[in-house]
């Protein structure tokens, strides 16, 4: 056929282009190795799950691969549900999930990668505080109790100078302006945790059950895609209020929520404190640190609107090499350094020393 000259030229050009540019500079062997010290570990570790952990996992993977140059860690941010399913099916060695496995699931499911009946390791390793952010001229912080917050987001409180808000914020000058609540349009762990908080602390006003999808029954309010969409919407609107990962709150005003008798502003320590203030789920194995979050806690200095994402692995792997990798990787994540890396990259709240100790003990069980 006549087009061979064409085709050949094109093929040669493509090949040349591919070979010239194919190796990404940062993926060349030796590129990422800051210090090639501990390199007895080799192999590929595959995990997947919660997209909330994506930024943190990227940072952990980058640092971990820097320490062990012969190791490749792949984290697939396919979502918590997909992550748990893949883990059950044995497609991944560990899962990231915005919730721990339920008792029923633990009883029914057969975890393919694990030695049967050995139980799981579940670590609350990623704590992401959710800030309630707002954009109101001349106001930087607001004190709100859960009932008011639920009223605002359910559309029963519609103006900023409503008595319910004004009575809690005597010092702030509140304009007579319509409130535009902004919520997530997509299915997200942030929404699930936020609605759970509202449902638990203000069940009279917020009667809808916790769900990753914003309830359709709630009238009004603006929907936005993903965290960045919410931040965009709150920033570019006026009189807007929304909820988002605290790390993205930036210049926006944030709400101090009422816990017990005082108003607690968001801070990393206060957010991490809720994990300590909450009991573990009963009847779980030794390595299972699944937490029964006590959102209605009255303990001082605790910020209750947080998203906790778990790292889930087996206590006993069928494959010893995998076990070694998981153990090392988990240990790095819960270490002080690992938590600092994720705090820098993803704005998570570092876990408290007590939880870090418990986690380390749980990781010791992995074999």
């Amino acid at each position, binding site marked *: 056929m006549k087009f061979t000259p064409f085709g050949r030229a094109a093929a040669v050009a493509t090949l040349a282009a591919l070979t010239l540019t194919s190796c990404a500079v940062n993926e060349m062997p030796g590129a990422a190795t800051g210090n090639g010290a501990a390199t007895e570990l080799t192999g590929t570790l595959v995990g997947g799950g919660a997209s909330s952990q994506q930024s943190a996992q990227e940072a952990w993977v980058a640092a971990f691969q820097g320490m062990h140059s012969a190791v490749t860690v792949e984290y697939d941010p396919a979502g918590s549900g997909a992550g748990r399913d893949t883990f059950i099916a044995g497609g991944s060695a560990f899962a990231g999930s915005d919730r721990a496995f339920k008792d029923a699931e633990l009883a029914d499911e057969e975890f393919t990668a694990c030695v049967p009946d050995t139980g799981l390791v579940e670590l609350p390793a990623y704590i992401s505080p959710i800030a309630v952010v707002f954009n109101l001229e001349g106001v930087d912080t607001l004190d709100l109790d859960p009932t008011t917050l639920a009223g605002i987001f359910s559309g029963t409180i519609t103006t900023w100078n409503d008595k319910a808000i004004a009575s809690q914020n005597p010092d702030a000058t509140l304009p007579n302006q319509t409130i535009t609540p902004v919520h997530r349009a997509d*299915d997200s762990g942030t929404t699930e945790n936020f609605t759970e908080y509202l449902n638990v602390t203000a069940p009279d006003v917020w009667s809808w059950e916790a769900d990753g999808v*914003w309830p359709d029954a709630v009238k009004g309010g603006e929907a*936005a895609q993903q965290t960045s969409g919410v931040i965009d*919407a709150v920033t570019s609107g006026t009189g807007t209020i929304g909820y988002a990962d605290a790390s993205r709150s930036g210049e926006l005003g944030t709400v101090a929520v009422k816990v017990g008798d005082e108003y607690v502003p968001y801070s990393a320590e206060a957010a991490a404190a809720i994990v300590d203030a909450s009991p573990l789920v009963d009847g779980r194995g030794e390595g299972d640190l699944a937490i029964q979050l006590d959102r209605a806690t009255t303990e001082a200095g605790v910020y209750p609107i947080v998203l906790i994402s778990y790292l889930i692995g087996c206590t006993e792997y069928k494959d010893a090499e995998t076990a070694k990798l998981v153990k090392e990787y988990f240990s790095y994540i819960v270490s002080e350094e690992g938590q600092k890396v994720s705090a820098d990259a993803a704005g998570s709240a570092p876990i408290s020393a007590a939880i870090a100790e418990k986690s380390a003990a749980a990781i010791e069980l992995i074999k």
Partner: protein
Amino acid sequence: MSSPPVARTESAQPPRPVQRLGDRIFSTSTLTAGALILATLAAVAAFLILQSTPALTENPEDISIFTSGETFWTYVGPLIFGTLWSAALALLMAVPLAIGIALFISHYAPRKLAQGLGYVIDLLAAVPSVVFGLWGANTLAPLVQPFYLWLTENLGWIPLFAPPASGTGRTILTAAVVLAVMILPIITALCREVFLQTPVLHEEAALALGATRWEMIRMTVLPFGRAGIVSASMLGLGRALGETMAVAMVLSSSGVISFALLTSSNPSTIAANIALSFPEAYGLNVNVLIATGLMLFAITLVVNAIARYVINRRKEFSGAN
């Protein structure tokens, strides 16, 4: 296929063409390729139906993407509404504009410039939809937001402009504007071609009778091109119905059915909803999303089939082709 292809026989009574092996292989392979296309289309339908059935047969309580009490039909209802509504709005804006542009290029612009101007409009078709999405969300939405605010304040009594105005401008009207821009080149290109095929004698006859240019266009070009305009609009409609990324990135959506154009509660579209939900979907949620995709497939299939039917009928009658 058993029947051998018959070679073209223009001259009178040629001898029966010799069937060579090469001929047979070649014609069979072309036939296979053609049949493969039919098979592909059938496969698209078959696989979608196969993967959709669980969404309809399983207990809706087990499907986590549904809020409690929701079934597949209440889930997909607002999406279908949003798809049709946004596409209709886009069409409403794009068609008059496209006819204007097509006329400008075919009958108004200086002849030397006309082809170049056609290319310029075609450039719009070359922009990937994801770039339109970026542009719509970052440039267009903030630009039109003050205008929306003004509309709701002054014309809020019209149901379409019911307040409150969205604080970000990411409403269904903005999405429809982006859609309109995206389907503009398609409709324009087809209309332009049809307008250019108007018989010159008709036009000259009209002008010779003393018609102004506009009267000439109204008397000859538009009647001649009517079927073409209809089918071009239908093709544009098909494109607007299926457009995904631009809507997903621009629209701030929630599952409502509402005709209000400027508020922040907008119905989503099927395609945008799939794009947003699919990356994190698992289990039965995937089947639900595929089932909504099947609905979209059915809708666009009908629209396109009608468009093609109109085009083909026009071909037979007008003799223009």
